[in-house]
């Protein structure tokens, strides 16, 4: 057992915990925050993505005890109030999901990703800050799988949230 203090969506928790507990199991089983999903439990699908100290991580590969003193944001805390986060709104407007199982992880991953900047593996010139076009979005989001294959609309939603493409409403008005 281990004792741990962790802040989740701005609420502080003091917990006694089996050292084997992953952050994902802590969130889902102890704190009943079931938004974060368990897809693979091996870091391969991204459905468990949350933000720890502002950075996107796979909560299935993170031991909860290793998060002592950290701030965790899950999909339940993204908006920080009653409304929706702009990324959530963009996902709804662009219809960026079917079953929705991967969506909480996608949302947290996008919020983390938009904060990251820098080049990616496909950036031609490493010295530049690349434009976040569809190819860059796909590369940066490759840690989030969608079994329903909603990728096209996920990319559109991210473009909308990042402000690189006109929102649907405007695009339709032009048409």
């Amino acid at each position: 057992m281990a004792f741990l203090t962790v802040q989740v969506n701005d609420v502080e928790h003091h917990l006694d915990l089996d050292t084997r507990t992953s952050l994902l199991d802590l969130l889902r089983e102890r704190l009943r925050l079931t938004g974060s999903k368990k897809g693979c439990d091996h870091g391969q699908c991204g459905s468990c993505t949350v933000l720890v100290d502002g950075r996107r991580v796979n909560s299935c590969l993170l031991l909860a005890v290793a998060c002592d003193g950290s701030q965790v944001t899950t999909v339940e805390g993204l908006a920080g109030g009653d409304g929706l986060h702009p990324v959530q709104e963009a996902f709804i407007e662009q219809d960026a999901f079917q079953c929705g199982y991967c969506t909480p992880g996608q949302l947290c991953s996008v919020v983390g990703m938009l904060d990251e900047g820098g080049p990616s593996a496909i950036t031609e010139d490493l010295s530049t800050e690349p434009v976040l076009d569809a190819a860059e979005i796909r590369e940066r989001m490759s840690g989030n799988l969608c079994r329903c294959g909603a990728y096209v609309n996920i990319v559109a939603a991210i473009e909308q949230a990042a402000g690189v493409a006109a929102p649907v409403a405007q695009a339709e008005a032009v048409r």
Partner: protein
Amino acid sequence: MRPFDYVRAGDGRQAVGLHEPGTMYLAGGTNLVDLMRLGVAEPDRLVDVGRLPYDRIEPVPDGGVRIGATVRNSDLGAHPDIRRRYPMLARAVLSGASGQVRNMATVGGNLLQRTRCGYFQDVSKPCNKRAPGTGCPAIPGEHHNLAIVGHSDSCVATHPSDMAVALTALDARVHVTGTGGDRVVPMPGLHRLPGTDPQRDTVLEPGELITTVELPAPPVGRSTYRKVRERASFAFALVSIAALLDIDSDGIVRECRLALGGVAHVPWRAARAEDALIGSVAGEEAYAAAADAELALARPLPRNAYKVALARNLITSTLRELAP
């Protein structure tokens, strides 16, 4: 998962002091937690070294750079000096895993990650690396992604790291500390070939802690990292290459660095190819001769001979791309 104690170390000396038989260091946990869940790793105690203050990337006076062992892979790939001066390293790191994994994974943990051989990860199967003396089912079985050079009758596994391939080409020096004191392990030289004791991936002694990776000033030349895999992103390499090429005004190869990933139990420095190239006239003929010199060592298995052709094409096409 077997129960274990967890301690977070405050500094390197404390971490080493806390290490006993049965202890493992935990950094980002992206490999170790996975292996514990699979039952492959069963530590009694985890000493968390993930927040040790080895988290800086600093220039050194001789023109090189010192990279702390707990620097996250994402921070290494995004660092302006690394991108500008060691582009093959930035590209190698950025091509590994996913954004989430790179945010967790550390430099030390990346070097010491274990093979992705499926039998190694499946405790219901024999495997000389996991359970010495039980045999190697990969040799008669599934090995399409395993080694073509340097393997033995005991083990044909590959080292999965991208970052380590670039570090091998850049003559990295790995600083470690342990109960026996501090020492420096050169790359190539950190990882070892399987021989008859594949359970040992590296030359490190139990309890030795990686603190820093030091790179000498970058060699002059154009460089890159290329990775061939089964899908465009978020997959391990089938074959990868870290390459640097410098050609003088007479068209003679002045400097060349080549290291291959996905082909061996170690990140494979292609020294024979380098020797063949340096001093020769740059061009298609020289690139092919260099690739052939290296791949003369290949002993492919029945289902991975494709890797020999893949490595050859990767070497020649990457050199062509780097030539001005």
